[in-house]
């Protein structure tokens, strides 16, 4: 087959045929070429400039679709970079175009030098992933391609392979981190289900003629694959996820009514984005402001104060506030110091109850900062006493005193925020959650496409249908880890009695 295909690709095979029968010779298109790969090749996380590298035959297409034109080879050109589908402007940056073979990998390749925030980076990566024929590079893939093209000299190899090692390690740790959460469980569950589907189809192929495998097996697989596709599609179209990918870390300000949440928002944004009034319940909806805190993109949202209310509009506001807190990466819980119980020994109990009420549905991964507002209204002695009570509170979040009026404590708050964001976005080697999610999205998308092949071929050719499941599992496996043929056989022998 192999050589036949090769021969077919050459359109030069001449055949003596009567011309009238040949309508057109359209040989040029229709052959899926090599994969084009992309990845962030500078360090991840906070950095001034990030470099996204693309290599493979679709590199020129990628540059054109993101920047509208191809710059002169090997010349840095400043371009607007926008999403090919939504046309949304992602960044302005330097674009370099290296036609092969005079490039790092020997293939056509390109570099986007963009601003280093996770939001920009993930936006550009996502834009690349939306183009046909492009996929995220595997660890070390650029270097491997360069090797095979004979492009690296031997001293370069050592340094690069160390980099790849670090990258791989970081990815592994990142994957582990991700896998521990709910998302990890979802992906793992899908992988297991798909593994089972594939195993059952494989059993049907390899054994059904000799063994007792009922035809119903395939109908079950049909349903399971359909369900998987639906689940994965719903997951991908989840609005919050897309939003977070574009807008960075979600920080929510929460607390009871009139604790000074909106004042904090105004203080942080340094403009009166939220209407501030002493009337409790002024903020009835969620208010969002994109911010840059120490270089990290943040979507700061102010929420309605959490209280029981009979006002239906406010009730809805409270509901949304709770939802927002649930979904946030970081919650700033604002407490009015003057509302604390006057007896010091009651303070820990009060705070514990208060935090529990506000953060009741937040996940374990979520970070919290307790902001003790109106510090100008309590004495230094009282502050010290509260500080001591906080230490008695086990598992208490980081806390800081602040006066939105006098701005006392703002510096400390910003430092604390910055450090927390740093943890959330990861150190430079560990991909930020958003970047990893961009990878996940691409792989999920590819998996869904592959599963479609199963349905297409189910009644035509089961080998090709199974191929679709294999490819789907391969894509999912890039998130959750490779599934070996042995594991498929394990499922077969567990679920069926195979034996002659």
């Amino acid at each position: 087959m192999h050589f036949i295909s090769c021969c077919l690709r050459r359109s030069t095979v001449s055949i003596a045929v009567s011309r009238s029968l040949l309508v057109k010779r359209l040989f040029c298109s229709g052959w899926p070429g090599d994969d084009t790969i992309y990845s962030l090749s500078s360090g991840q996380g906070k950095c001034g400039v990030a470099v996204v590298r693309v290599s493979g035959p679709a590199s020129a297409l990628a540059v054109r679709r993101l920047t509208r034109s191809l710059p002169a080879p090997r010349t840095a050109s400043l371009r607007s970079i926008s999403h090919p589908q939504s046309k949304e402007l992602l960044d302005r940056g330097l674009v370099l175009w290296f036609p092969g073979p005079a490039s790092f990998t020997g293939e056509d390749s390109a570099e986007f030098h963009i601003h280093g925030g996770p939001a920009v980076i993930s936006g550009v990566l996502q834009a690349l992933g939306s183009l046909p024929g492009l996929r995220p590079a595997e660890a070390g893939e650029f270097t491997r391609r360069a090797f095979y093209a004979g492009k690296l000299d031997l001293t370069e190899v050592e340094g690069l392979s160390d980099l790849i090692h670090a990258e791989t390690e970081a990815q592994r740790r990142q994957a582990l981190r991700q896998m521990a959460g709910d998302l990890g469980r979802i992906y793992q569950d899908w992988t297991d289900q798909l593994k089972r589907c594939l195993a059952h189809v494989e059993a049907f192929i390899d054994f059904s003629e000799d063994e007792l495998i009922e035809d119903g097996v395939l109908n079950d697989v049909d349903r399971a694959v359909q369900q998987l596709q639906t689940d994965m599609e719903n997951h991908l179209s989840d609005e919050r996820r897309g939003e977070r990918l574009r807008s960075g870390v979600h920080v929510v300000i929460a607390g009871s009514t009139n604790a000074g949440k909106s004042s904090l928002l105004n203080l942080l944004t340094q403009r009166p984005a939220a209407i501030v009034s002493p009337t409790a319940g002024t903020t009835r909806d969620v208010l969002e402001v994109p911010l840059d805190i120490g270089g990290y993109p943040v979507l700061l949202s102010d929420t309605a104060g959490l209280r029981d209310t009979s006002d239906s509009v406010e009730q809805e506001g409270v509901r949304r506030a709770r939802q927002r807190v649930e979904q946030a990466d970081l919650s700033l819980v604002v407490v009015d110091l003057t509302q604390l119980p006057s007896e010091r020994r009651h303070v820990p109990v009060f705070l514990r109850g208060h935090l529990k009420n506000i953060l009741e549905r937040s996940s374990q991964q979520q970070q919290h900062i307790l902001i003790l507002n109106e510090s100008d209204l309590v004495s230094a002695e009282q502050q010290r006493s509260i500080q001591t009570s906080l230490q008695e509170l086990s598992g208490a979040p980081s806390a800081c005193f602040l006066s939105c009026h006098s701005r006392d404590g703002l510096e400390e708050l910003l430092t604390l925020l910055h450090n927390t964001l740093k943890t959330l976005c990861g150190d430079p080697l560990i991909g930020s959650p958003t970047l990893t999610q961009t990878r996940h999205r691409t792989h999920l998308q590819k998996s869904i496409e592959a599963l479609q092949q199963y349905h297409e071929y189910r009644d035509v050719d089961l080998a090709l249908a199974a191929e679709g499941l294999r490819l789907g599992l391969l894509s999912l496996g890039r998130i959750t880890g490779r599934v070996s043929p042995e594991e498929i056989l394990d499922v077969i022998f567990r679920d069926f009695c195979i034996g002659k």
Partner: protein
Amino acid sequence: MTAVKPAETQSSQHDIYIEISKNSVTLQVSVPQLSHMLVRRLQFLKTLSTCSIEASNIHTQHYDVIVVGGGHAGSEAVAAASRIGAKTLLITQKIQTIGALSCNPSLGGVGKGHLVREIDALDGVMGRAGDWAGIHFSILNRSKGPAVWGLRAQLDRQRYKDFMQSELLSTPLVTILEGSVQDLLLTEADPGKPGKHKVYGICLANGGGEIHSSSVVLTTGTFLSGALFMGQNTTPGGRMGDPPSCAGLSHNLKNVLGLKIGRLRTGTPPRIVKDSIDFSLTSVCLPDSSPTPFSFINKHTHCTPKEQLPCFLTYTTPGVEKVVKESSHLNSHIQQDIKGPRYCPSIESKVLRFPGRQHQVWLEPEGLTSSLMYPQGLSMTMPLEMQLRLIREIPGLQHAKIQTPGYGVQYDFVCPTQLFPWLQLKNTQGLFLAGQINGTTGYEEAAAQGLWAGVNAGRTSLSMSPLSLSRTQSYIGVLIDDLVCHGVTEPYRMFTSRAEFRTSLRPDNADLRLTIRGFEEIGCVSEQRYNKALLVQASLKQALSTLQSIHLSAARWRDKLGGVTISKTKSSILNGVEVLQYKDVTFQMLASSFQELFGPHLEISERLKVEALYHPHCEKQRREMEKMQTEESLSLPNDIDYLALPISLSQEVREILDRVRPSTLGAAARLPGITPAAIVHLFNYVHRNKHRNHM
């Protein structure tokens, strides 16, 4: 015994007769009528010089290759080594068991049929033997796509053996000796080549003396420390009715060569007297009305469609389960903690692992005139009287008589990670292993390895470099790669799910994948077969590119092809290959519309249909295959000291590499636990070494 003409008969110039008795060989000029049990006809074609063999000087003869064992692996090894041009000696306990089907009387199936096709594409014997001996041909998985079609046949045991023996006895350069091997003759390794030891021949048992050779292929099957089990009885041996092989070989492998040895078990069902079966209580399974031959060079099978015999299907009952449970304390085979196969378990383990179910029992003919039936699915090791009780619980077998009881076999195997992909032991130059000794099960798996070990034993003895088959090219490549990279924990059997490029490695295109390379590079394929494959290749190529060149609108195609369903809008343009992908479109239909263009290719119309169907998918796989091939083409020297290699590798990776010692970068990349960074380092290392060697 009557010699059976092989499919490709070669004219003989000189007939030489060798009379062989245990451990002594006498050469005499004889006439065919004198032939008795131990006289076999040998035809020497090209090597007239070997006609001067004296019986007494077989020991002073130097052979290129000695093959020990005449089962499926041994037979293919002998045939393959001789096709390479090596002077080959086969040593077997009994000539009359060459080509014996020790277990099921059938060949092929899903995955296994792929192997038979590939063996045939490399000019092996198995496919042609199957076509000669088959008495019930059917293609499994007909409805599931040609990539997973399983060519399968029930065989006449006697015909299969006859063909195999006749074939080997008439193969040029081959000498056959009855005997047992006591020892391997070992010496120090040749410096400059990998390995600690080197084999230079064998020593026969019972004072039979030494025979020298450049290579030795061991295909001892289940005979390596083999033990037979029935009920609570254990007897040494590898197959019922045959003497056990010598303990010496086991000792050699274990203690002298220090190889890692494991133990596996398998079993076989009782054979039932046909006349004692009430077939009216079973359902009949008919063969294909038009048998498809295994071999690319056969147009027909030996058996005519009408001569074919049916199989019968019946089921186990709760009574069977009861007997298994009652007999389990009398069954030492299943009580032992030795790995048996999961896919071909005994009825005992099926009942114990999946209680309360009905299990299928196929009743298969043992031959055209045989008085026995083979109950596939009833492999068992309980005491004979319990076996009888058990089968009589099955519909149709209530009055069945057992002719030979079922029994279990436990045997040693050599952990195959100690082999190169060319099936030579890494630590012993010239010593090759093939078949069950490597932890596989099945005739086809054994024959595939035998062929490849024979090719390489022949090549190395004639100072040619050994060769590997890639996973991207063949199931044989997948089989060997799995064995040498991952080892086995249970008897290894081929499944199509093991091949990642399944839609490219199809039974229909094995000749294109292997025959051409088999002639041009490997040297194990006859010119005649090669030319045939070239013709097919050219014809396919031409027909496909013509198909590619025809572009018509869907409406026009519908028109041309008599209103066939094409689910495209009228105006969309399709080429001929795309149209041929439609289920209802056949190449014959295209040929009747485009007589001039496609008429000449009608002979390959089925192959064209398959090619068209898989065309886009094979193209997608091509890149992935090429990547794997690139990595496989970069070999890692076997003598690398991974633990001390001055490159940055984690201790974990070093230990994995040291343990497995992959032969190529590709094999290394597939090992669990190997990181991309490690591959980069290894790549660099290989590259640097290459450069150094060039300087």
